């Protein structure tokens, strides 16, 4: 197999992994603040369809990305209202949001099925353009891909190096104690949901505007759930989330490599690798208490005004 083929596979793996990493970062923020968001799938679908629609209508992919991002944050406010203000069960609320996304995205996206868009432009880095043209074209990425690793570092910095992040993690560990020390768990959880929703929207924007460049119903194909799995896999840490996303896109790349080298392995079985690997990792560190989940993950914070 040629070097070109291998590089091509790596390039496509990077493309498929980007949206996942953004979404995983978003879910990391949610869960660090104590909220399990199973509605990511729905948020991503709505953002992907909205961003795609705006791109078709205005011709500007950047505007599409912006709208998708804001949409993600806003849609997540529904979940915020349910689980923070109304103190509803998080799993059920998330699944309800997922069904909402199935429906709303189908409605938004219907006029744009099969539409052509200006995809997010590829930007060539200075060093890369010296390479032979075939190689160079493989490593011209769009802006969202270049920004995804810095974004992971930014989220890490936000969570672990700022007062706001400390407060957010405190709420995720024990909302009552955080409240007693002067934080507002309600406000912080809303903020976490908005920020996380925007990240999921960004991931969805990359999916529809840069990667697949079209809209179809259920196009996220379970990415929202993969993101939840990757958060656990990465032990609720933004930098380890990079490893998680690499693992997933690595499995995709591996599968493409096998196919191009003529080995017959079902792509569906290879698709299961990230999940099974996550499960195995969880089992491996299951007995230990050290890197356990945020302590009040999934719990309802009743607050002072009962």
């Amino acid at each position, binding site marked *: 197999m040629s070097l070109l083929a291998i590089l091509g596979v790596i390039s496509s793996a990077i493309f498929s992994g980007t949206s996942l990493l953004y979404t995983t970062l978003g879910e990391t923020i949610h869960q660090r603040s104590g909220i399990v968001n*199973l509605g990511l799938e729905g948020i991503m679908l709505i953002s992907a369809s909205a961003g795609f629609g705006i791109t078709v209508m205005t011709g500007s992919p950047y505007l599409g990305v912006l709208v998708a991002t804001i949409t993600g944050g806003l849609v997540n406010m*529904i979940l915020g*209202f*349910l689980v923070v203000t*109304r*103190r*509803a*069960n998080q*799993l*059920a*609320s998330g*699944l*309800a*949001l*997922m*069904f*909402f996304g*199935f*429906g*709303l*995205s*189908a*409605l938004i996206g*219907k006029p744009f099925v099969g539409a052509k868009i200006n995809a997010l432009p590829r930007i060539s880095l200075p060093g890369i353009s010296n390479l032979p043209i075939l190689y160079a074209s493989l490593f011209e990425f769009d802006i969202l891909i270049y920004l995804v690793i810095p974004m992971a570092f930014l989220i890490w910095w936000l969570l672990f190096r700022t007062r706001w992040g400390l407060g957010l993690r405190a709420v995720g560990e024990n909302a009552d104690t955080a409240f007693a020390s002067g934080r507002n768990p309600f406000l912080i959880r809303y903020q976490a949901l908005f920020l996380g929703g925007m990240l999921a929207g960004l991931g969805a924007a990359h999916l529809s505007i840069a990667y697949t460049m079209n809209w179809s*119903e*259920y196009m996220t194909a*379970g990415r929202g*759930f*993969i993101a*939840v*799995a990757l958060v*656990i896999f990465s032990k609720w840490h933004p930098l380890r989330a990079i490893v998680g996303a690499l693992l997933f896109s690595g499995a995709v790349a591996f599968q493409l490599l096998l196919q191009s080298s003529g080995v017959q392995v*079902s792509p*569906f*079985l290879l*698709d*299961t690798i990230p*999940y*099974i690997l*996550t*499960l195995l990792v*969880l*089992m491996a560190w*299951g*007995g230990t208490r050290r890197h356990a989940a945020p302590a009040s993950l*999934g719990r309802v914070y009743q607050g002072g005004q009962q």
Partner: protein
Amino acid sequence: MSRKDKRQSQSNSLLRKALDLIARYALMVLVVLLLFGLILLISGKDPIQSYTDIFSATLGSSYGFSEVIVAMTPILITALAVALPSRTGLINVGGEGQLYMGACLATWGAITFDSLPAWVLLPLMLLLGMLGGALWAFIPGYLKSLGLVNETITTLLLNSVAPKIVAFFVFGFWHSPMDTNKTSNFVSAARLPTFFNSRIDLSFFFALALLAAFWYVMKYSRWGLEMRAIGGNPQAAKRNGIPLNRYWVIIMCIGGVIAGLAGMAQVSGYYGVLLVNFSRGLGFMGFLVSWLSFGDPLGILVTSFVVSIIVTGGNLLQLTSGIPYAVINILLAFTLFVVLARPVFFKRKEA
């Protein structure tokens, strides 16, 4: 307040409570209809026409009613698959995956033993379907009992794996000569019998029997008591000699058996073929139904019926108004949002 006064005021307020409840439910329905009507208006449809269409097509005719029952069957069964483990405090989000595995194994039976007569083949498929679901639920149950991984996480992960296993078998081995994404139609011996000149099949009666059994076991048997004890306080139950870990594994497997049965019924009754990605969230709907009704048998029956009206109405909206079928999920979601947003109406209990 003395005890006597208290009792008196309780009985006085009983009627008012009932009226309150009805008024609140009516209000909730109104809010849902208004919200979804707004969506319909924005997409250029007449909401009132759409609602009358949905109503007349579901409850207005015997055929429509039978279709609601058909849609309700898998939701009711998967809701029970969630409600049973939830009594011991187990959160089984894996109905979706267990349903797929049940469908997968049942299909294997239908394809491999297609020359057997129906009275052998159907029970065999049923057993295989239940085995598939149980297998898929055993993993989270066992990991939970070892104290390694939380069952919520395991079931969620396995949900994503099961449809891919189905896809592997269908695309790889079982697909029909015409389509790559589904099997050939099952032989008639592998189809569940249908009743009343409708698509209602035997699985509906399974569902009712399971519901009754669930109610009876929970209310009158020692197992039900022990399970509620575990759900209430696992450590206390353990100290009282209830074999906690064994219960968790077995209950989880029974949940899987039930969900697997729903999967078998979908391929053998409803579809008659195994289609890749056929479910699109039936297991999740079951989870929501079970959670919204707090695992109460009557609540499960009513809630799954309401959800089925919505789902069936969606089919119709697609035909008459040309809006995508998926849009009905908005109506479903609004209903769920409104119910979830008012949990103070209900007794507070964990899912």
